[in-house]
């Protein structure tokens, strides 16, 4: 296969300045990740230790295979929301390996507000269930939660994407024959009681684990009966008498060991067959991406420089290289998995949209997973392009992306504006996974453009009323807040806080993240594509 040749000079001042800039962003990311993992109050830590519980990190270490990756999902969900300390929306979740088997593990963190569920916590749980369903990954849940965070109950209870949906999904996941294994390591009250109840396997820890529809305070209030949590819903009651739980564990460590045994006993998983080659490293060090990506989002750069640092042997068989050059499409391998990769080299024109449509159809028919590298300011606008039908060509690309059934993976590498976000498989287009680089920005349009539009609309309105246009200082009053909001709500941390992605990643780790995700995605069979018509040459 043809090999990409880099024209970036790692000794240039530009490269070094870019590198240092990205190094700073990655350093901050590491700090945020560490804070999310470790920032807990002394009181919560002491309480956890007093109860003889392992911490969430220790539980994850114990349940997952050693020396294997853990691809954490949304570790910075709810970042800077609520009181700023509901790290990871109150839980940790991710894809890891148990007994050689790829699984999705999620765990409440009882050291964050007693593991109570905030609105973003529900959103994260639902996201994890989507990952489980789309990729057919066994779900392992370590429950230790005081239930809904009552002051915000109205935001997490009744709607289609609220708490009730979690249990609905559990039934559907079970119907799909995807194993669900739950360990009760703390309270599972009321609705929370259904998380174990709806699972295939329930492991119950003596002393700390409790399942009941109404906890001791509610029982006392309703009936006057005085009862302890252990008597009301402890491991012995549920394992020996009620049959709600299946496996009795003396402590957290034993519960983790039992989960490992259960996973080892699951029927073998046949992964989807895709073209594989021996995995080889890229010719260029992935860390050079730090120096390749310009400091300013508005500075254009060749996305092939990124691809050369992502794909095996830096080999890319480019599709329609000379046609629609603002979108680069081609076949490559990542960690040995064949992929169709698309990356932006400028604004999308009709030709680039048609090229994308053709390429996506081919990949979908051939069962080749798609990788989207988004750095897109949008589709081209203007009279000439509207006349040529840019909207209907954009439609083709968006429709092809929406209906492709092969695994789709998206990485936000810079700009993500307007319909470009959709055409390049943004969150709403159900990529199996989506990650954000720390430099990325997202929005309906760039903040400057948005301000200009608002000023134009205002001036048009004033003109209709026979008034003079806004003076420059009034324009600034409009531009300032719009720019500020654009920067705040468009940046990677706002994105990841709202679960618009599965996490912010170090660009140098993109290759490994994609490789892990491809392997995980292949736990689900590929649809056999018979579209009832030929692939159309666009």
């Amino acid at each position, binding site marked *: 296969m043809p090999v990409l040749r880099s024209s970036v000079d790692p000794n240039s001042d530009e490269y070094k300045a870019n590198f240092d800039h990205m190094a700073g962003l990655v350093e901050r990311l590491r700090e945020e990740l560490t804070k999310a993992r470790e920032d807990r109050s002394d009181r919560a830590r002491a309480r956890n230790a007093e109860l003889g519980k392992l911490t969430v990190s220790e539980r994850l270490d114990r349940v997952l295979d050693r020396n294997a990756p853990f691809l954490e999902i949304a*570790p910075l969900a709810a970042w800077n929301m609520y009181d700023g300390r509901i790290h990871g929306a109150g839980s940790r979740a991710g894809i890891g390996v148990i007994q050689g088997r790829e699984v999705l593990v999620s765990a409440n963190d009882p050291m964050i507000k007693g593991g109570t569920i905030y609105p973003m916590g529900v959103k994260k749980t639902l996201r994890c269930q989507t990952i489980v369903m789309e990729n057919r990954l066994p779900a392992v849940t370590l429950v230790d939660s005081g239930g809904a965070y009552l002051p915000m109950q109205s935001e997490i209870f009744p709607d289609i994407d609220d708490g009730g949906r979690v249990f609905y999904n559990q039934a559907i996941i079970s119907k799909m024959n995807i194993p669900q294994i739950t360990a009760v390591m703390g309270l599972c009250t009321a609705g929370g009681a259904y998380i174990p109840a709806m699972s295939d396997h329930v492991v119950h820890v003596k002393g700390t684990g409790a399942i009941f529809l109404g906890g001791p305070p509610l029982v006392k209030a309703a009936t006057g009966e005085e009862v302890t949590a252990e008597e009301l819903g402890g491991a012995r009651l549920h394992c020996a008498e009620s049959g709600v739980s299946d496996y009795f564990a003396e402590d957290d460590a034993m519960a983790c060991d039992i989960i490992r045994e259960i996973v080892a006993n699951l029927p073998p998983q046949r992964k989807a067959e895709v*073209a594989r080659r021996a*995995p080889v490293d890229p010719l260029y060090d992935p860390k050079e991406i730090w120096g390749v990506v310009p400091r300013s989002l508005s500075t254009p750069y060749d996305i092939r420089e990124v691809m050369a640092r992502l794909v095996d042997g830096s080999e890319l068989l480019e599709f329609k290289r000379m046609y629609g050059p603002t979108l680069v499409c081609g076949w490559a391998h990542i*960690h040995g998995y064949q992929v169709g990769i698309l990356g932006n080299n400028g604004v999308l024109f009709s030709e680039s949209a048609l090229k994308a449509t053709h390429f996506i159809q081919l990949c979908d028919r051939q069962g080749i997973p798609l990788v989207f590298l988004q750095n897109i300011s949008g589709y081209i606008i203007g009279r000439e392009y509207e006349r040529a039908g840019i909207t209907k060509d954009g439609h083709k690309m968006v429709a092809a992306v929406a209906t492709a059934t092969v695994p789709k993976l998206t990485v936000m590498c810079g700009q993500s504006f307007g319909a470009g976000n959709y055409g390049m498989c943004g969150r709403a287009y159900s990529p199996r996974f989506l990650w954000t680089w720390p430099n990325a920005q997202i929005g309906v349009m760039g903040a400057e453009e948005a301000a200009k539009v608002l000023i134009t609309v205002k001036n048009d309105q004033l003109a209709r009323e026979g008034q003079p246009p806004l003076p420059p200082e009034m324009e600034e009053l409009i531009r300032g807040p719009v720019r500020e909001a654009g920067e705040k709500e468009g940046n990677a941390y706002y994105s990841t806080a709202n679960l618009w992605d599965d996490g912010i990643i170090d660009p140098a780790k993109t290759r*490994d993240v994609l490789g*892990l995700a491809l392997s995980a995605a*292949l736990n689900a069979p590929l649809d056999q594509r018979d579209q009832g018509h030929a692939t159309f040459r666009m």
Partner: protein
Amino acid sequence: MFDKVLVANRGEIAVRILRTLREMGVAGVAVHSDVDSRALHVLSADEAVLLGEADPASSYLNVERIVQAALDTGAQAIHPGYGFLSENADFAARVEEAGLTFIGPPADVIARLGDKLTARRLLADAGVAVVPGMEVAARDLADLARAADAVGYPVLIKASSGGGGKGMRVVSSPEELTDAATAASSEASGAFGDGTIYLERYLDRPRHVEVQVLADSHGNLVHLFERECSIQRRHQKIIEETPSPALTPELRAAMGEAALVVARAAGYVNAGTVEFLLSPDGEFFFLEVNTRIQVEHPITEVTLGLDLVRHQVEIAAGGVLGLRQEELVPRGHAIECRIYAEDPAAGFLPSPGKVILCRPASGPGVRFDSGIYSGVDIPVSYDPILGKLIVWAEDRPAAMARMIRALRANVVLGVHTATELMLDILASAPFAEGETHTRFVEDHFGAWAPSEEGDLAAAVGYVSADLLGLGSEPAALGDEGGGWPSPWQTLGRWTLGS
């Protein structure tokens, strides 16, 4: 004591070292090549670092990568095991230069003892008997011929920086000398990058007897008695035992004392082995010093009740050796059989492949030090040792009977091994009589061939495994599409924040 130690090796010895580290509460870091990412030593460690590709130069001999791995993981010391870099003085020096501790003797001691000629001179000066022969390398053929005449035929040509039988030739008459010397020199040059050769008198049917020594950095020094390693195939030890059936108490004391003289003369620190040749009439000659833990060290451990690796680590950390020579009394008899992946039906060529089933022997006095498990692949790139079966019993006949039982019960299916040959040796009259010498296999088993019906129990095992589908792996282990591993298997410990 160290908090964390990196083990710069693979296979059974790496696993064995990691076990002791775990017992000592010291974190163990494994290093590995890409074909070893699921090897037992990786799975046994607290952390593992990928060094590079399979070829040893990129991985287990890659000095800079190994030192960097130790620095990156925060290890304070490196244990080199045996083979690979264990007797490489430059490596030991590089480790110390990086501010780390090398678990073994100081670099200058390794360098002095590593060159056989230098070692011969050093010890001849200390009054230890060496096999009569040249004290400097041969400059040319005439030099070699003069020396051969002086010590008397037959002579043995050896490579100055050799080992494992490479570059060795027995020459019984002057006419054979030229051809043998040329062949030996080119073989040595190919194997060690140094074609320097010398010769010494060839002892007919000597025994190979070695003495284990242990020295700390405070001047305390003990010997841990002998190991007899005479049962060799092509200069490769296959069965070792202790005590040696050939030693009288007087001879044992004399050899032990000689080993201490050698260690003292060399300024030795840490565990080492002084090898001697013992002639049939009870004369012993210094052969060489192995400046590392030996493959066969467990037989010493079980007869003395010691953990040699623990002592190595403690000595390297500056500890004082608590053992007193007069308190050391070996008990009973120990035998070790080395299990290699080799095919007796194909001239004992290495037999790599997948271990379908590994079920080690157990029971009183049985120990299996191995680097394998059911389902692991044995790569072609390295020494094919799978493990070592070690038994201990009260006396030699009981130990032989126990080894025969243990060898029969030790199941390794999927690769060929020479278990059958070792069973035949252990059951033979010459072995029972203790007539072990370095030509034992040639003399008594030169025409040995595996039995034609093969191992019936293994055949039944294979058929059962096939019927049960044990040989096929679940696809989730990454076997989809061509058997290439998934990054879940190759990346090791990995997180977004690491």
